[in-house]
């Protein structure tokens, strides 16, 4: 970690310690005059699963969207798998190739079939032959347990199926890191489990994951580290067992009592 911090700023890519996949150092972000991210410091090691929680509007989505530059940070440094995020398009593209993202609203492409959704980026970004891309796509569809839906359009699938397609779409790029931005919040209760099962499997295979979610059961099962955010800052971080049993901060305790009350 320390090497990266001492490396010349702006000189990228920076090789950081072999274990760190994501490093955020003193990251600040403003929307206009509004201070949304305050002094964020976070290190995610290879294979580590970080679960981010916090009240709505606490900046957790903004934070993980900074990791693949869907949002721009104004201060501090973000280094993702050894590449520093600057405004250099080359770095941004390189990072986006290595980082998969799953959105709350699925964001599947409605004008393409499921298979075409899955092969679009491998063909145009990874420059794979179509046949190979389709083989990969079918493999991942199998993995998320909907191989039979390959030729349907997203509009014909249920929410849970759509979200699993979205996960498969990211996996087709063979990313090293997966970001999940409230992947189950837009789903009906009976569909949440089918998506979580896929995510748990992924976690067990050793994928590096950063996950914004309120699914505390999931966090307990797979999380290596809980991060609690409030008002744009990281308030507390701890392994799940400690985090739930013995929260240190008053704000964390208040939040936990609210979401675990029912």
């Amino acid at each position, binding site marked *: 970690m320390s090497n990266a911090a001492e490396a010349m700023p702006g000189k990228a890519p920076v090789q950081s310690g072999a274990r760190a996949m994501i490093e955020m150092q003193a990251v600040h972000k403003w929307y206009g005059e509004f201070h949304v991210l305050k002094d964020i410091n976070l290190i995610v090691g290879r294979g580590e699963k970080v679960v981010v929680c916090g009240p709505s509007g606490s900046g957790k989505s903004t934070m993980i969207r900074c990791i693949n530059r869907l949002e721009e940070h104004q201060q501090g440094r973000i280094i993702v798998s050894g590449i520093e995020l600057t405004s250099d398009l080359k770095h941004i*593209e390189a990072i*986006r*190739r290595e980082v998969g993202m799953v*959105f709350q609203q699925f964001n599947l492409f*409605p004008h393409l079939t499921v298979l075409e959704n899955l092969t*679009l980026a491998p063909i*145009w970004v990874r*420059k794979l032959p*179509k046949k190979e891309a389709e083989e990969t796509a079918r493999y991942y569809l199998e993995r998320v347990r909907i191989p039979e839906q390959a030729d349907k359009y997203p509009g014909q699938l249920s929410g849970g199926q759509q979200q699993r397609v979205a996960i498969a779409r*990211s996996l087709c790029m063979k990313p090293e890191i997966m970001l999940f931005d409230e992947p189950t919040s837009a789903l009906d209760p009976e569909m949440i489990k089918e998506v979580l099962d896929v995510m748990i499997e992924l976690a067990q295979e050793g994928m590096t994951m950063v996950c914004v979610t309120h699914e505390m059961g999931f966090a307990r099962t797979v999380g290596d580290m809980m991060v609690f955010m409030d008002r744009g800052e990281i308030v507390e971080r701890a392994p799940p067992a400690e985090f739930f049993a013995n929260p240190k901060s008053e704000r964390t305790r208040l939040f936990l009592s609210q979401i675990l009350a029912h």
Partner: protein
Amino acid sequence: MASETAAIVVRPSRPAPWRDPRLRGIALQVVFVAVIAAIIGFLAYNTTVNLRRQNIATGFGFLDREAAFGIGESLIAYSPADTYARAFLVGLANTLYVSAIGIVLATILGTVMGLARLSRNWLVAKLAAIYVETFRNIPLALQLLFWWALLREVAPGPRQAWQPLPGVFVSNRGILLPVPHQDPAYLWMAVAFAIAFGIAYAVFRWARRRQAETGRQFPAGWVGLALALGLPLIVFVAHGMPLEMEWPVLRGFNFAGGTAFSPEFGALLIGLVVYTGTFIAEIVRAGILAVSWGQSEAAMALGLRPGQRMRLVVLPQALRVIIPPMTSEYLSLTKNSSLAVIIGYPDLVSIANTTMNQTGQAVEGIAMIMAVYLVISLLISLFMNLYNRSVALVER
């Protein structure tokens, strides 16, 4: 009691005819049709009586008579000794000509302005917004008169003509452009262009197939562009570069040489393009805004470049929203070209108007105008429906 109820249920009841909804419907329609027919009959009767009283022969016989009026500009050969039928044809050709050019230019202007309004560049977005809001909220007739006055009155005489580009003259006699001298090279250049187009298509197909097989991409678009420009250029050079242009030259009080647009044509075209462009800009903007930002974000997260994002994700979805209203804009541009009559450009309506004034054949004249516009409307919507279906097929 029970048996009575059963009897009522079992008996196949036929309601009285005035309470049977089916019969009532039929009766209503008969009355309706009768009333409409009576009105039409009444109008037709009055018309025939009035026409007879004014000694106007009905029918399209007048079309064979000599028109005996001149037409300022015409795409096909015409003289006042020609028939009314030919005069109509001249008008039709002029209408189609100005509409076709207008549609192409308005689409370009509208698309550019619509995209500009979405630009993250504040100045560009504001300028586009000012353009749209200004020209959308002023009647087209007024705009036509304004451009016409600008070209005719405010523009200087030929001797002091404005020269926005070398060889291009704007004066109160119209807009003059230089044209190249006739030379066989130009024909061969056109042939070369067509061949380049064919090759580019083949390259495009080959690139697609190769990408599907090996994943390697080929800049087919750029190669196609290079071919389309390069091949004609090679022919041009091979023919010894016949660069001789026919420049408009001031001879006495007017220009000679080059090709000229009359102030009427110029004003009509500018007016139609600028006015319709505002509506197309709004359609394009709305179409792109209709594609949710999440789609772009998902494409970004997958690592697609901005160009690919637009081409593979945003445009295919936006077109679906854009095409239907675009069709009706094309239709209204064609219909609006009839405003030519205000500034005296000899379009179909203007010529029909002259004909009606000369012959008194108002019913026939208006019937012909209506028929032509209806056919144009039907053709454009047919064409656009076909295109729309092909876009829709790609999706589902």
